[in-house]
């Protein structure tokens, strides 16, 4: 922005982000360090580090992350080929579906898979009905396959987004040039296509591994007690054993690896050398021709639809299903579709662990999301506007703001807990920290969406506007705002959705009287009884619809932007 050419004005905008980062990032992180390495006065008997558990947990975290990443690549790379090289009917819908998981909260995904393969899910209900048995025959939940399926569901979209886009933009002339020089089809792939896609594949792999490595909600809700990763163990050590020392050391291990991975991923994505050429949309795409190509497109489409659609569809349907089982055998006595689960959200029944009706959780979530969206947007604009591409000091600010990306949500939650719990009355105002940590988590996304747009505004536009009679003080209104409006809206929706679905950090800060929607879903999923399960489904469905709606708007914004560029 032109008005920020002035250095003094710019540094004024620096103060707020730096204060925010100091108070809400560095202080909590320092506090974890403090708790871990000083022998605190409040040392409880359990407050020690168990290296056996730590070793086991770290080992399992790597194991599941590597396995999840490999399977994700196995699904994701053929899918990238599908999206990057073929045009077929329904492709656009499939593309939207396959990017949807990116914005879905973990609780929604967990609830979705629960609705599909859980003990009270569709598959089991159907099998019980058909086989006349009273126990659910499929026990996929709380198992390693459940974790893997959920991770593949989540992260295939990343591979498709990164590798598929690169594949689509890979100039087909290069492949043709290789063929003209005598390369067989397999030569073309291994000597041209693969080397050119490698940076994108690496970048996607690191990103997927990072997400699998720091996965919390999925493991907690779908892995059960048998499987604890670093994240889950931090939560258990903190919330169940109050062992902040153990949690702290795990956090530091986690932080080291996730920071390394984050900066590796930022570096790799920086030097992608896929030749991106201006293309007419769909220029490199072809209709599947041969029998094998058709078979490939058909089978992969079916697999993707089952993988991507079934959990969300199962969730939506399960949320409007009510039924009763006949007593001894599993046969369903009666069932029907109703909004009873949704109606239940307005009541606070006696058996509930909550002091408030579930609908209050929705209200809390929306309020928190609005607050954190506003905070993240204001900070994001300040950072984007005051940093320019060249200056070293500015780069440093951008780097600072990216730190939360490499810090797991659970680590942040633990940090807040240990930094702010010592103050008097902390329990009472704890929930008000939630928007702050959400804003911190959303900040890197906001910056990555709006900063490139702000930086890409050419200087001569301001000069043109001024020669056409726009006063310097109004440049932002006539030049900047119209140009960044859409990315601002996109960033706002992202921030809102991130906050709405955030589970990891929130689970450390929540109080019974101020639950957020994800926390409520998690609690209700763990409560016995079909009624509670139904309410969890209804809440998850609401969350799904809100996030899905936001995602739909983002998609529309993008399509419009594309059209304008042409």
């Amino acid at each position, binding site marked *: 922005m032109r008005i920020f050419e002035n250095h003094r004005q710019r540094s004024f905008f620096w103060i707020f982000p730096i204060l925010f980062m100091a108070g809400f990032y560095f202080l909590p992180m320092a506090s974890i360090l403090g708790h871990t390495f000083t022998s605190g006065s409040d040392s409880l008997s359990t407050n020690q580090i168990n290296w056996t558990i730590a070793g086991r947990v770290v080992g399992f975290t790597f194991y599941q992350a590597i396995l999840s990443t490999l399977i994700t690549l196995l699904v994701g790379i053929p899918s990238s080929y599908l999206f990057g090289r073929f045009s077929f009917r329904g492709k656009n819908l499939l593309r939207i579906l396959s990017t949807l998981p990116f914005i879905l909260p973990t609780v929604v995904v967990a609830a979705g898979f629960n609705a599909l393969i859980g003990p009270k899910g569709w598959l089991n209900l159907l099998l019980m009905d058909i086989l006349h048995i009273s126990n659910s025959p499929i026990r996929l939940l709380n198992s390693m396959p459940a974790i893997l399926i959920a991770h593949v569901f989540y992260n295939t979209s990343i591979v498709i987004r990164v590798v598929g886009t690169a594949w689509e933009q890979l100039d087909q*002339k*290069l492949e*043709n*040039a290789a*063929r*003209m*020089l*005598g390369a067989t089809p397999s*030569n073309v792939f291994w000597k041209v296509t693969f080397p*050119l896609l490698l940076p994108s594949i690496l970048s996607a792999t690191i990103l997927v591994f990072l997400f699998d490595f720091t996965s919390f909600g999925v493991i907690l809700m779908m892995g059960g007690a048998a499987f604890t990763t670093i994240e889950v163990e931090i939560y258990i050590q903190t919330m169940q054993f109050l062992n902040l020392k153990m949690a702290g050391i795990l956090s530091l291990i986690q932080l080291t690896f996730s920071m390394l991975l984050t900066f590796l991923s930022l570096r790799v994505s920086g030097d992608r050398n896929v030749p991106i050429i201006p293309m007419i949309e769909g220029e490199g795409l072809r209709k599947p021709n041969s029998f094998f190509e058709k078979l490939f497109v058909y089978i992969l489409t079916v697999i993707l639809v089952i993988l991507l659609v079934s959990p969300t569809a199962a969730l939506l349907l399960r949320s409007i299903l009510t039924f009763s089982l006949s007593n001894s055998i599993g046969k369903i006595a009666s069932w029907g579709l109703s909004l009873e689960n949704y109606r239940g959200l307005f009541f606070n029944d006696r058996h509930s662990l909550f002091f408030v009706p579930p609908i209050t959780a929705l209200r809390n979530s929306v309020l928190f999301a609005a607050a954190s969206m506003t905070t993240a947007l204001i900070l994001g604009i300040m950072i984007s506007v005051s940093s320019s591409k060249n200056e070293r000091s500015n780069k440093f600010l951008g780097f600072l703001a990216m730190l939360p990306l490499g810090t797991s949500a659970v680590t942040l939650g633990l940090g807040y807990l240990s930094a702010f719990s010592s103050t008097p009355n902390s329990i009472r105002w704890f929930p008000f920290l939630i928007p702050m940590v959400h804003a911190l988590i959303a900040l890197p996304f906001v910056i990555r969406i709006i900063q490139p747009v702000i930086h890409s505004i050419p200087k001569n536009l301001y000069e043109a506007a001024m020669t056409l009679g726009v006063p310097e003080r109004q440049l932002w209104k006539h030049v900047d705002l119209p140009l960044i409006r859409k990315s601002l809206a996109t960033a706002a929706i992202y921030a809102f959705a991130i906050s709405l679905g955030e589970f990891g950090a929130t689970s450390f800060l929540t109080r019974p009287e101020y639950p957020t929607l994800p926390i409520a879903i998690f609690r209700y999923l763990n409560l016995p009884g079909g009624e509670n399960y139904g309410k969890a489904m209804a809440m998850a469905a609401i969350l799904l619809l809100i996030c899905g709606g936001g995602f739909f708007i983002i998609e529309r914004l993008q399509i419009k932007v594309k059209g304008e560029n042409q």
Partner: protein
Amino acid sequence: MLELKHIEKNYNRLPLLEDVSFSVGKDETVCILGPSGGGKSTLLRIIAGLEEPDAGQVLWDGREISTVPPHLREFGLMFQDYALFPHLNVFDNIAFGLHLHHIEEDEINRRVDEALEMVSLQQIANRSVTDLSGGEKQRVAFARALAPKPNLLMLDEPMGSLDRALRDQLIKELHMLISEMDIPVIYVTHDQEEAFSIADRILILNEGRIVQSGSPQYIYMNPEDLWVASFFGLNNKLEGKICSINPVIAETVIGKITFSCGKGKFSVGEAVDLVILPTAISVKENDDDLNYFEGRIIDNIFKGNSFTIRVVILGSAEFSFQIMTPYPKGKNVGFTINPDSILCFKRKK
């Protein structure tokens, strides 16, 4: 030698190529010239094997090769915008095709060096291709296409995005290199000057059809129809009706005009299109001369070695002519039009 017979290609049910037949001799350089979207690149892709024709045959030395995959055809293609592999340096780009032909390492090195020398790029063998200038990229692409010693070389708009001065220089170099080769060359371009300076023979391709073929000189002097004439930039068009056949005279909006082309081709009363070459006029005072006209100069543009004047005759028809001395704007001039510098075509229905 390459021969194409009745090639047809449709895209989305619209004809892209219609009944295209031609052949290229052993060491002949053929230019396919035409406006963009005329089907030139599709034709090249069919010869290369990157696309299959819907109908027709591609023959190499009399053998049908329509179904032979591109990597087995041993044809070289230099792509528009060059398509250099960004993950390989200059040397490895040129060596790419040689590796695939299972040639020994020493031989590869020798041949790449040879190719680099041919295009005078020995110094930058280890440079990344993304750092090259447009002209350097073009040379690397040329060397890469030639290194495997193809049986046929195709060049798709090789001067594509280069600026004027560089283009003139490179056309000269390319012409030297191509004329020394003893393989057939097919050169695709939309630029007539390029085609004229490179080609032994020119094929003009418009809307999927070959509308004319012949040597550059012949084609330029004898455009087949009004479209080819306007494609060459001849825009002094005039509609007329034949009113005498010996001498040939046509009645037009600017009056009667006599010309020498098409003797015996027309009959009285036939509708024709005339094109007056820009060099056709000489300024005269005497209104008794043949094809004498008067007009008002509405513009006068300095072109370095000559002037282009725009003249309005009888207040309606506007023409551009090339003359050696300037005339001020607004002045009326009298001039004659050389009957030998008028092209005439039967009006198409």
